[in-house]
């Protein structure tokens, strides 16, 4: 299904080494990937497999030790803060912990207002800005009127994560990196948030890179799955391929580790 689509982000030999000499740890080890436009890609791996390091390298928050990345098939150049800012117009992220993703001293309105200003709406009138914010909030089932003059810590984790999606809705980046966005919230809100991400993809045709340790979730949401073990991709392919017919031993173990209740649900969806 991915054939014929333009690649938006490619990685070649991406490596990250922490530390020096005896103490050095290879977090990400010569990884190649190709993310296509409009796809939902899952990167699955257990804790410590280097998912988050890769996530940060793709975002440009930390530098690569080695390797190259191509954004829209051109070499990605993010040397210097000015070029990074340019790059970040195209890529956004949702972080794992909603409680630490917001500046606790900034009101919610100003978080959303920032997004409008950044996405070129600086000269809009106050009324238009309000309308935009209301629209974004209603997209994620939040009531804008209830959020004004509130601080992020007054919201629940699920509400914060939805606010994060509202932010993405306003910014409309080409790539959305989501680092375990649902791991800190309850199962019920989890489904809502995943649905919203899917809806967002359908509306804006953005590429969503979904990082998770939950292979069931990956299967449920994604088009392409990358399995990561000890900083390397051991297997990748379409979700069906990888999960129904796993090749690598690690993938098999990951699948067998999924709780029974999940397995039944998985099987019933498949058959």
């Amino acid at each position, binding site marked *: 299904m991915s054939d014929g689509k333009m690649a938006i982000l490619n990685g070649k030999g991406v490596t990250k080494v922490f530390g020096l000499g005896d103490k050095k740890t290879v977090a990400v080890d010569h990884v190649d990937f190709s993310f296509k436009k409009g796809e939902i890609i899952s990167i699955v791996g257990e804790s410590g497999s280097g998912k988050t390091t890769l996530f940060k390298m793709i*975002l440009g928050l930390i530098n690569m030790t080695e390797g190259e990345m191509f954004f829209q098939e051109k070499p990605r150049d993010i040397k210097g803060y000015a070029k990074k800012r340019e790059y970040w*117009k195209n890529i956004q*992220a949702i972080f*794992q912990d909603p409680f630490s993703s917001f*500046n*606790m001293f900034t009101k919610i309105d100003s978080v959303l207002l920032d997004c409008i200003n950044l996405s070129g709406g600086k000269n809009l009138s106050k009324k238009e800005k309000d309308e935009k914010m209301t629209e974004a909030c209603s997209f994620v089932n939040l009531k804008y009127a209830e959020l004004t003059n509130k601080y992020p810590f007054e919201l629940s984790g699920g509400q914060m994560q939805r606010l994060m999606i509202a932010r993405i809705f306003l910014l409309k980046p080409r790539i959305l990196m989501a680092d375990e966005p649902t791991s800190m919230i309850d199962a019920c809100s989890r489904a809502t948030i995943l649905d919203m991400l899917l809806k967002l993809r359908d509306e804006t045709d953005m590429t969503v890179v979904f990082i998770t340790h939950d292979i069931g979730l990956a299967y449920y949401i994604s088009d392409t799955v990358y399995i990561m073990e000890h900083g390397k991709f051991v297997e990748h392919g379409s979700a069906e391929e990888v999960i129904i017919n796993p090749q690598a031993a690690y993938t098999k173990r990951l699948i067998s580790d999924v709780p029974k209740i999940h397995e039944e649900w998985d099987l019933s969806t498949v058959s």
Partner: protein
Amino acid sequence: MKNTIKQLRHSSQFMVGFVILVAILLLIIIYPIFVTADPLEMVGRGTFFKPGTYVSVVDAVTDGASTQKSYTLNLDTSASRLNARLSMEDREAMVDWLVRFGGVAEGGISTSDDDVPALLELWSEKYDSTNPQKGLIAAKKKYYVRLDKSLKELNNSTDMILAAQGEDGLEQTGTIADDSYVNVKDIANQRTFILGTDNFGRDVLTELVAATKTSIIIGLIAGVVATAIGLFLGLFAGFIGGVVDDFIMFVTNLFTVIPSFVILILISYSVGASARGVTMVAVIIGLTSWPWTTRSVRSQVISLRNRDHVNMSKLSGHSVIRIILVDILPYVASYVVMAFILQISSGILAEAQLSMLGLGPATTTTATLGLMMNWAMTYTAHLNGSWWAYFPVILTIALISFSLNLMNTGLDQVFNPTLRD
């Protein structure tokens, strides 16, 4: 914010410190309203006056030119004075003389206290040294002469003579009897020195209030300078990292390793006494006490800079300055406030130390707590027992640092809930 203030109100340590500090601040604000005298005015001459109420001798004698408010108290003082001075032996000798040579009947006069005035009257009437005084040895005769002379002096009043400049020099305008007393409250020009005076005859309390004010200002300036430098360097070193961090930390470590007090002494010395005003000393203190703030702010910022909200702010394309100001500064603000309070306290102490060494503000127009201690030490107040010249100063310094440190501990407990008991 509201919550923090509420928690602070419940922190007993913070409140005790706060109350002491506010009391000191109120004192230095309100006291000068009532006592407008120059704190460095030399009221008395000479050396350390004990705490107490003092009047000038002139004012004790006369209050202005026209109205003399003096009162004779109803005390028979001359009589009691005579009783005290005239020994029983003398009285017996006097009675003996009067009976033998004065023609007074035996038993006509007694030697009791009540009869002393009558005895004296009789004596002055009857005694005559030219009387042959048969039967008396020469020594006894001489004794009576001496006794008579001393009795005449006793009767003479030792009144104070008032004089004024007249046409022909000084003229006597009146006398004030020894037994005239003046009500202390009626004297216009009296000074109460609650804490006595210092070696220059300056009121210690007034001086102390002015000195506390100056010292707190020095502490504030030093605190602001040190915190500003420390905060600025700490934020940039921590957030930008890399070479900038290495360089800033190199300089900071250099300052940390060399005792800052030594640098402080060297700078103060090289600046020279003439340029060393209050502000200059405060700035010098500030310039040598920033390294600890830098170090701690930097370590806080390093742990903050990889937080998700900072990453999110970066992804939103905010400038570095904005990220530091909006996303980092509020998180370290509580810490900086605490560091600032400690800097004020250590600034006041550093000034006291410098001044003790004679390197403090070289000024004759203001007093500082350190200068007061320096003066007390130079004029050996601690050796001659003039405790009032230095003890209140030490107490004030101790109270200020005590209150500031208590406030700091209270704030620490509010900001770090794990420290609460």
